[in-house]
């Protein structure tokens, strides 16, 4: 009986220890992987054509979903915001509400989530499938480093595309809010733009939003190439890696957003 309990305890300890070791090993490998991507980043600039192709796949092909979502998010924000602001007779602050929520939060976050599911998953699936069909090994055989040829351009493509997409999302959102607020509801256009410009600060609001989108672009691109590169080389492995990319990127974006917001936007009230 004591020996059975001891065996159970030993199994438990072994399982905890094994899990911890595996997690720490993953962190170590991810760090090494990150350093390798950083080391091969000059290659992404040298072979600009490859990076341009990735910006095309990550950025240009995501344009439609980003633009359409941006317009709709802006229009909904304007309708809901007007509904509440109208109760306090503050309709003309609609521009402030919409611009601040889009530029500070929704632009980077929603564009990041869409980007993770639209472009991040595609990158993971592509690299994972390359690995499953042994294209990466074939490249190594031909003395072509897959980190430089495959991973670095995809990482930088996503990294460059993401802030631009977030900017477009915010702009289209504000345009959508303008359509609903000014054209449909009939708020004065001068008050809409004027109040917005008076309340939105470039450094404090716009620049912090851009910094957020750069951080999210880094996180999503890194997770996407890492999951693709470390996926099991089977059909099942690639599909689960793609799922992990979307889940991990989304959670990372939301958690990072909280952390960044705490650092950026606290201390306004004295």
């Amino acid at each position, binding site marked *: 009986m004591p020996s059975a309990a001891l065996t159970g305890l030993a199994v438990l300890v072994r399982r905890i220890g094994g899990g911890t070791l595996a997690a720490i090993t993953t962190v170590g490998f991810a760090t090494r992987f990150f350093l390798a991507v950083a080391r091969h980043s000059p290659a992404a600039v040298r072979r600009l054509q490859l990076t341009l192709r990735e910006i095309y796949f990550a950025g240009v092909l995501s344009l439609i979903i980003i633009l359409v979502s941006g317009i709709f998010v802006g229009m909904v924000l304007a309708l809901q915001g007007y509904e509440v602001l109208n109760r306090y007779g503050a309709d003309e602050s609609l521009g402030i509400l919409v611009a601040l929520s889009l530029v500070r939060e929704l632009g980077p976050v929603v564009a990041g989530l869409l980007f993770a599911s639209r472009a991040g998953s595609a990158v993971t699936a592509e690299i994972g499938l390359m690995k499953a069909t042994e294209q990466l090994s074939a490249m190594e055989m031909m003395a072509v480093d897959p980190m430089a040829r495959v991973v670095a351009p995809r990482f930088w493509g996503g990294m460059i595309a993401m802030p631009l997409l977030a900017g477009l999302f915010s*702009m289209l959102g504000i345009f959508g809010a303008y359509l609903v607020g000014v054209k449909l509801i009939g708020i004065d256009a001068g008050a809409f733009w004027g109040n917005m410009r008076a309340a939105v600060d*470039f450094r404090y609001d716009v620049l912090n939003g851009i910094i957020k989108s750069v951080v999210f672009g880094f996180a999503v691109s890194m997770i996407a190439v890492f999951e693709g590169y470390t996926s099991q080389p089977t059909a099942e492995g690639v599909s689960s890696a793609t799922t992990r990319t979307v889940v991990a990127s989304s959670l990372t974006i939301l958690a990072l957003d909280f952390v960044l917001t705490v650092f950026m936007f606290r201390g306004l009230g004295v």
Partner: protein
Amino acid sequence: MNRSTIDLWVGIFVTIGIGAIIFLALKVGNLTSVSTSPGYHLEANFDNIGGLKLRAPVKAAGVTVGRVEAIRLDPKTYQAHVTMRVDNGYQFTSDTIASILTSGLLGEVYVGLDAGGDTRMLADGGRITKTQSAVVLEKLIGQFLFSKAAETPK
């Protein structure tokens, strides 16, 4: 996909992306207004600043001329010490009066500057000596009740 077609699309994408960020900076944000232009500092002590916040506007005759940069409590006099950054284009006389005002009933709290007739101007780091505190509604109501109570026996 042909190489030059990809270049064209990426070019369009990057251009409108940067265009969007410039739009956010110029049309949505106030990059062009006073908040980012170089300015000089003015200081003022107030008995009570009410709901004044950092980055609140500093206005003269309703025109925004600067922003509040720092607010702290003076430990000796127990007054609020407010530091404002005012646009270089605007000079104020040394007998300027600074007051804490509110735009509308629920509007933002700001610092109003009323220039006087002095010929000397305030320099960088200059102190505005004449100040007017924020109107605190509770105190007003208290005074009103007190004066009401005082006149009842008559």
